[in-house]
């Protein structure tokens, strides 16, 4: 079973290797300079050479990301509850939340610096802004789409609204919560990096800025590779936690498509 799941990645692995080889050949052909596109081997070299520095920055960025995800989860759930349980709140806030998602967050950078300084807070704020929405929407939708007959069943038992929330709505929303969280997880690292961009002492985003200024392109790409891996790691982590937390929930399309991550 385990082996088979890994084997399923075989074709992707082959294609990935082929793409990397093509890339290496392309760069070596000299059509572009390594200052624009370093070769894969040069990137690996940079990853190895700068592993100590990169590790420290990665820890910092991961920390920001995880804290942000926690805050986004709490905020997202609270908002989802508000939206899911009151139609007035829904009418008042939902359109604004949608609009808020169309605002380029980078524009907030100066404000965040002024409000929160360069400590970890602005990163947490940005990760939260990047992540709460998918969680909120998925959960609120799920809270609302609970089979109304289930609610009526509980009402016929004279359950209080709290009992209905606790026994029916929340558990029913859990799979959607994890879907939202999975999407959020893939955004989150980008959020942290944008947050660092506002102003920071360390982190992968700052490392990238420094490397760009030093014209050290291979080092820039090394940081990008780590960013990607972090996102993937969080994506997989959420899926793993979900499988542990929801033993009763079989994905509707098992072995096919997982939940898609969205654009970062």
């Amino acid at each position, binding site marked *: 079973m385990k082996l088979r799941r890994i084997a399923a990645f075989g074709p992707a692995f082959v294609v990935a290797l082929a793409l990397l080889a093509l890339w290496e050949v392309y760069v070596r052909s000299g059509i572009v300079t390594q200052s624009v596109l370093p070769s894969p081997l040069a990137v690996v070299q940079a990853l190895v050479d700068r592993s100590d520095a990169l590790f420290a920055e990665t820890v910092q960025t991961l920390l920001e990301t995880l804290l942000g995800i926690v805050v986004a989860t709490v905020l997202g759930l609270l908002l989802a509850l508000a939206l899911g349980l009151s139609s007035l709140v829904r009418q008042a806030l939902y359109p604004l939340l949608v609009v808020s998602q169309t605002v380029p967050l980078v524009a907030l950078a100066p404000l965040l610096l002024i409000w929160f300084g360069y400590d970890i807070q602005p990163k947490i704020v940005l990760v939260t802004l990047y992540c709460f929405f998918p969680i909120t929407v998925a959960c609120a939708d799920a809270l609302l789409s609970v089979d109304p007959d289930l609610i009526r069943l509980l009402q*016929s038992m004279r359950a209080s609204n709290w009992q209905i929330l606790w026994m029916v709505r929340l558990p029913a929303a859990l799979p959607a919560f994890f879907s939202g969280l999975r999407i959020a997880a893939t955004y989150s690292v980008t959020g942290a990096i944008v947050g660092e961009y506002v102003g920071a002492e360390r982190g992968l985003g700052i490392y990238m800025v420094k490397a760009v200024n030093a014209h050290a392109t291979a080092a820039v790409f090394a940081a990008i590779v780590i960013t990607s891996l972090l996102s993937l790691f969080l994506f997989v982590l959420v899926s793993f936690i979900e499988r542990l937390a929801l033993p009763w929930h079989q994905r509707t399309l098992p072995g096919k498509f997982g939940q898609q991550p969205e654009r970062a």
Partner: protein
Amino acid sequence: MNPGYKLSLRGVTRSFRSGKRTVEVLSSIDMDVRKGAFVTLIGPSGCGKSTLFNIIAGLDVPSSGTVAIDGDAESPRAGRSGYMLQQPLLLPWRTVEENILLGPEVRREARQQAREEARELMKRFGLAEFAQQYPATLSGGMKQRVALLRTVLFNRSFLLLDEPLGALDALTRLSLQMWLLDLWQSFQSSVLFITHDVREALLLSDRIYVLSARPARILRVVDVDLPRPRRQEHLAEARALQLERELLSLLLKEQPV
């Protein structure tokens, strides 16, 4: 109202407003369920049977008329019957046992005691071996058994069963009918039951109310004088066949095209 009655409806009506029009769904229903009786409602689709059940279960209020449970027409009705809807409505994140324990949990009853009682019932009604499984792994028939047992554990004295066997295939249905009769007899419950199946009604009921198409009126009240305990064979008796014919022709006249 007669205290020997589990349920008494007098002049119950219900209309819904949809846009500017008012749709009358129930038109003055009078109905009684004696304690321990198995009473069935039968009527065309959309005539208002579930609407009536909602009112009795306390999920809805009549536009006019009175509803008395145990002679009491005043107290809120929610919680005073075990209401089972058409789908099993099991909570997929709870095991069979935890599903059955939903009622006591809502009532905040002592957990340990409820659990023992539930285990006892599951054993008696053939569900013990599934106790720790999730509903997704059960067949349709099994799910309905679990749902029925959950309903009984919530309130064994008065059951409102809205087409509980409607979604099952004909053979599974036959075996659940007998199982249900067994349950009813063990607990001496008063049952109000909905079905579209005349033969099912005849097999199970002491009394059958036949409803008209919407707005629902009571077309006929039939007391089923077949022997108890009822068995499948009783349906082949002349009296049963006559009742079946009678009820069918009544209903087919009400059936939309």
